[in-house]
């Protein structure tokens, strides 16, 4: 990649990161909702640790994994909304008219999203530890969590970009959030898959890729270094990113043709 492309990506990544950090209504949900849900679920579901076969005595260690997925989903909404705003205000069209290459046009935004995902993940690790979670994998595990969080944020952020490029509407992007939240609900977010006793729910959670992403984060807190769980978690995050980036490429082509 040439120096010019890197400079362009860097400038747009910085803009994307600052745009999120400077808007309290975008930062607030990232910090507040996962924290409050962790507090409520960790206390309300603490009794679940008394179930035979539950993998840990600390429900906080079990539940903190969900915060990373929620954070990644907020990345999707923030990225999509910011891009849709740029499209609605005409900024995106003006950018497209400059000599800027196609890759940095969205690539810069996505690098910013990945950086924001890494920041969020570091925050959730600190939040979990402050709430009493035990990070079995140690300091090395924290770095892996940050890397997985950045990759997941990149994948979800790219999905937000696809929605923004296809619809050009911030409202449509916001509408995606509840849809993706359903994936968290119908996964192994609250109990391990082995303890999901309702047949159809167990099947849905087993087919739901979000279960494996959650289990990837969770394994580092509960079991230490579990290659299978981590491999599946990274595979889901990388697969999601690859599919979403293909979607971005197609949507960008269509959007620029229209422009």
């Amino acid at each position: 990649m040439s120096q010019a492309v890197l400079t362009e990506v860097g400038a747009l990544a910085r803009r994307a990161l600052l745009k999120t950090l400077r808007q309290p209504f975008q930062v607030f949900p990232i910090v507040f909702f996962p924290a409050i849900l962790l507090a409520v679920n960790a206390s309300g579901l603490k009794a679940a640790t008394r179930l035979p076969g539950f993998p840990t005595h600390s429900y906080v260690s079990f539940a903190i994994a969900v915060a990373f997925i929620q954070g990644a989903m907020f990345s999707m909404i923030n990225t999509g909304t910011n891009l849709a705003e740029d499209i609605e205000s005409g900024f995106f069209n003006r950018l497209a008219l400059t000599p800027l290459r196609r890759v940095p046009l969205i690539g810069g935004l996505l690098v910013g999203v990945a950086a924001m995902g890494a920041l969020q993940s570091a925050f959730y690790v600190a939040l979990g530890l402050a709430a009493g979670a035990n990070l079995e994998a140690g300091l090395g595990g924290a770095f892996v969590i940050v890397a997985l969080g950045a990759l997941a944020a990149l994948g979800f952020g790219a999905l937000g970009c696809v929605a923004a490029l296809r619809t050009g509407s911030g409202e449509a992007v916001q509408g995606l959030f509840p849809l993706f939240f359903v994936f968290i609900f119908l996964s192994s977010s609250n109990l391990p898959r082995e303890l999901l006793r309702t047949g159809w729910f167990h099947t849905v959670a087993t087919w739901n890729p979000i279960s494996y992403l959650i289990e990837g984060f969770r394994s580092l807190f509960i079991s230490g270094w579990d290659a299978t769980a981590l491999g599946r978690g990274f595979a889901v995050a990388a697969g999601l990113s690859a599919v979403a980036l293909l979607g971005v490429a197609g949507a960008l082509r269509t959007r620029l043709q229209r422009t």
Partner: protein
Amino acid sequence: MTRIRARRGRGSMWRVARAIAWRNLHTYVRRPDLFVPSLVFPLVFFASFAGGLSALGSIPGFRFPAGYTAFQFVFVLCQSAMFSGLFTGFSLAFDFEGGFARRLMLAAEDRRGIALGYALVALSRACITLTLLTAVALVAGMNVTGNGVDLFGLYGLAVLLVLVGYAWAAGVAFRFRSIQAGPLMQTPVFLILFLAPVYVPLSLLQGWIHTVASANPATAFLEAGRGLISGVHDHTALAYACAAGLIALFALWLLSGLRNAEASP
């Protein structure tokens, strides 16, 4: 003379209320973007909690005669009832943003009819949602061990909760007249509901959440609802009293919000 004037006033209030209720319900059922999520989300919550957490029913000390599905059904019923009220507050805020509610304020003979009309909308929306939720729960094999009177009491409580949610959200909507106030409507209700014994009975909660849940009115709603569905009454009178008290309090909040909207330039 005064009596005739009062009767006319009541008549115009109902006329305004009926017109608003008809218009909003018409919009609601014709717009899938409003209609579908309001039906799908309670079902997702129900599926996720009753299906995904059914193992919690076998925790030592968990005793509920009607089973875990019925235990969670009551939570989702209460939540859906309150959120039907909240979402109607959203509609009111949207109508203010679009200018429709301001035109209504100019045209209505009795502006209390506006508040009443949206309350009717909330109750009608809740009726559709709760009917579907109940049907799905019964198809999913929910046990109901309470009798007909108990169930009447359960749905009566749900109606009161619709009004609690609506009066709170409408008070916010009248004051802020913008959908930007949405989180202010939603977050306190969400917090109050989830700081109650959602997943397990109060006796199995430990630490700070037990203390908070013990003082939370939503705990009384859930315990009463669960008592009514299982036929083992628990805090029913307290729940009704709390709901009535909250309606009275939020009705004042709503009416002062209406005055605030009337006074705004």
